[in-house]
């Protein structure tokens, strides 16, 4: 057991090197996770930002009897295939709505076909060589340009990529979330109140607690099976509607809200309860006048996080048919609707390359909404956090 001083120093050096190695290795793991996020976000930005611009083309539109009968006749033959078919299809309708147009010829910026759009953005397109020449020529004259794509935010789904927008999905998401929160917020808060403030410590309470923890870990797709078998097949709730989607997501979000509310209730110190009991409050009065107001910011924060989670959920909604093709904004809770993640899923399955861009564009919008929701939650937590 006689080691020289030098040996021990060398050994020590080696041991300290191991600490440094572990430190750098673990730091690298964290950096790798952060890199994933950066790569992911920039990939989505590169793919999705072009979706906010759409090619428009300046053409002479002839409003005449002939173009009412046969819309393609309204524009010159050389650009006929470059103009969106959706524009041509709606031409007779706009002529009917504005009779003054009849007999005039106007130079107008109209929506271009998605092939032109993709060509301008430098992607592979199905444009023929002569059509390319026409587009290049128009480009030189400034008669083709990429303009801000307002349609993307105001239109519903379409089979023509240049016409497709996220408006119907966004409205569907809002309606579904209204149903979800109306159902799961009160039930979740009441459950948490019962478990934290009222429940006796018996086997039933324990069963409920274990059950909630399990429910939080049940794969979301199983909630879709529940929605299909119980809501749709048994109760006869109409398929594909915000109503059934909201009810299904409500059950999924319930454990999140319960757990968040319980944490918020637990953070209220017992001295407050004892003081209230001391002046003669009943249990409900203590909860209503003291515990609930004090924990409300925490409950709200948890609910926003639950809402964001429900908003991004797709799998159960596919099972209950919320991936329908919805070209118009739905008006009622019992009409077929789609939600943003489902719209992204539908677009991701379209073979047309132009839809890839739309998909990534939709993803950017969804991510922006979710990140701002989560940021609101973090901000609220910071602002209302109380140390006792």
């Amino acid at each position: 057991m006689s080691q020289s001083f030098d040996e021990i120093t060398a050994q020590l050096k080696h041991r300290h090197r191991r600490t440094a190695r572990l430190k750098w290795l673990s730091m690298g793991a964290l950096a790798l996770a952060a890199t994933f996020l950066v790569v992911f976000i920039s990939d989505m930005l590169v793919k999705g930002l072009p979706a906010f611009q759409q090619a428009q083309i300046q053409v002479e539109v002839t409003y005449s009897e002939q173009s009412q009968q046969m819309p393609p006749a309204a524009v010159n033959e050389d650009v006929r295939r470059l103009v969106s078919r959706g524009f041509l299809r709606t031409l007779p309708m706009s002529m009917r709505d504005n009779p003054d147009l009849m007999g005039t010829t106007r130079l107008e910026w109209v929506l271009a076909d998605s092939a032109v759009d993709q060509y301008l953005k430098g992607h592979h397109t199905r444009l023929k060589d002569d059509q390319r020449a026409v587009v290049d020529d128009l480009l030189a004259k400034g008669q083709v340009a990429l303009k801000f794509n307002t349609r993307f935010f105001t239109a519903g789904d379409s089979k023509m990529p240049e016409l497709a927008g996220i408006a119907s999905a966004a409205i569907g998401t809002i309606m579904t979330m209204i149903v979800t929160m109306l159902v799961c917020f009160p039930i979740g808060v009441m459950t948490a109140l019962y478990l934290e403030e009222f429940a006796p410590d018996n086997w039933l309470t324990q069963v409920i607690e274990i059950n909630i923890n399990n429910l939080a870990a049940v794969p979301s797709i199983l909630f879709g099976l529940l929605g299909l078998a119980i809501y749709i097949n048994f109760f006869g709730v109409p398929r594909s509607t915000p109503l059934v989607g909201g009810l299904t997501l409500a059950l999924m979000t319930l454990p999140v809200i319960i757990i968040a509310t319980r944490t918020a209730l637990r953070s209220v110190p017992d001295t407050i309860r004892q003081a209230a009991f001391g002046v003669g409050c009943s249990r409900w009065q203590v909860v209503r006048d003291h515990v609930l107001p004090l924990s409300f910011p925490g409950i709200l924060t948890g609910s926003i996080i639950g809402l964001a989670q429900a908003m991004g959920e797709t799998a159960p909604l596919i099972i209950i048919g919320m991936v329908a093709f919805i070209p118009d904004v739905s008006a009622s809770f019992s009409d077929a609707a789609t939600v943003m993640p489902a719209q992204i899923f539908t677009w991701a399955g379209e073979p047309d390359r132009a839809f890839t861009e739309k998909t990534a564009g939709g993803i950017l919008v969804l991510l922006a909404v979710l990140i701002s929701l989560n940021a609101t939650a973090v901000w609220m937590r910071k602002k209302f956090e109380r140390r006792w």
Partner: protein
Amino acid sequence: MMPINQVYLLFCAALIALGVAAFFLARARASQLRTHGAAMVAQPDQYAWFSVVTTAGPALLVAALSAFVLLLLGADIPTLYLLGASLAVAVVGLLIGLSQVRPDFHARQAIERVIRGILAAAAMVSIVTTLGILISIVFEALRFFQMQSFWEFITGTTWAPGNSFLAAAGRADEGASAAQFGSVPLFAGTFIITLIAMLVAIPIGLMAAIYMAEFAPAQVRTLAKPVLEVLAGIPTVVYGFFAAITVAPIIVDAAGFFGLDASFNNALAPGIVMGIMIIPFISSLSDDVINAVPDSMREGSLALGMTKAETIISVVLPVAIPGIISASLLAVSRALGETMIVVMAAGMRPNLTANPLEDMTTVTVRIVAALTGDQEFESAETLSAFALGLVLFVVTLALNMVSVIMIRRFREKYRSNDL
């Protein structure tokens, strides 16, 4: 016959009117009693609320029950009678409520009992949900096993549901070959993709947790936590798109560079992306566990002359291991049930192979495929989704149970209440 909406509106309006009447009548009566010098055990407002409860509560119950009977059992009772009956109940409740405005009646305690009952009923919703999931899955799965043998389902290696729609249409003889429901390839695919995800998530997540708990300065911690939370908050459909459009082609190119042949629906892409999705899950749970290891153990180890790395590896991690395993089991259960990433990036073809560059399918993919096709609900293919769902439910439930037990042991041993 009035339309149902009008009946509903009429009922609500009448009930609100009766409730308001109950409130003011009871309060007036209680105040009157009190001004006459009676010593009351509750405040006038409490008597008022009690009357509202006795008015509205039973009436609502009657209305809900009758609506349930009407809609579900198809009983033919005129809605007007129901309306009348429930409103009569409300009036009776109002009278009972008013008669209870007596000096010796504990209105506050009565309200308390009602509220406790309502809260307990809300708490039962989560139990009912679990039962609902179980019942919906088990019943349909049983119908499936009446058509197909259970043994075949568990051990068969061919999943070919293709012709089951002919059987459902009563034309079973016309099918070229019978539908086969051997689920082994689906479980194998699920297992391999989960394995890939865990190989990505556990090392990176655990190391990131070690860094955050043991090495990182406070500023890095406050910065890294939200970054990881963002990673956890990205919807799975977005991850699926990323896996299918970005990661899968990269893997195909990389495999081609090494002279290997990879499918565009290879198992590696969804596996890796699923792993990335699970990193924050593992890191935040492990971070909590490592932080819950008592500092006295670290101090003892450092005092004996151990370096920091030796302390972490031979003292902190062995103590934290039950918690880390528990986190990993939860992560496995999440990976097994993950749907969107595999639906979008993994294949549809049941393929029994261990090569992650080939396409393979998972349980969740087949559930979605079975329920989104234009099949009759009664067909064996549709019902097979519920049989697969049952397996998924049982497996994830078992994993969660084990995980909960392990974390409870850890908590009891170190008396940590933060977990």
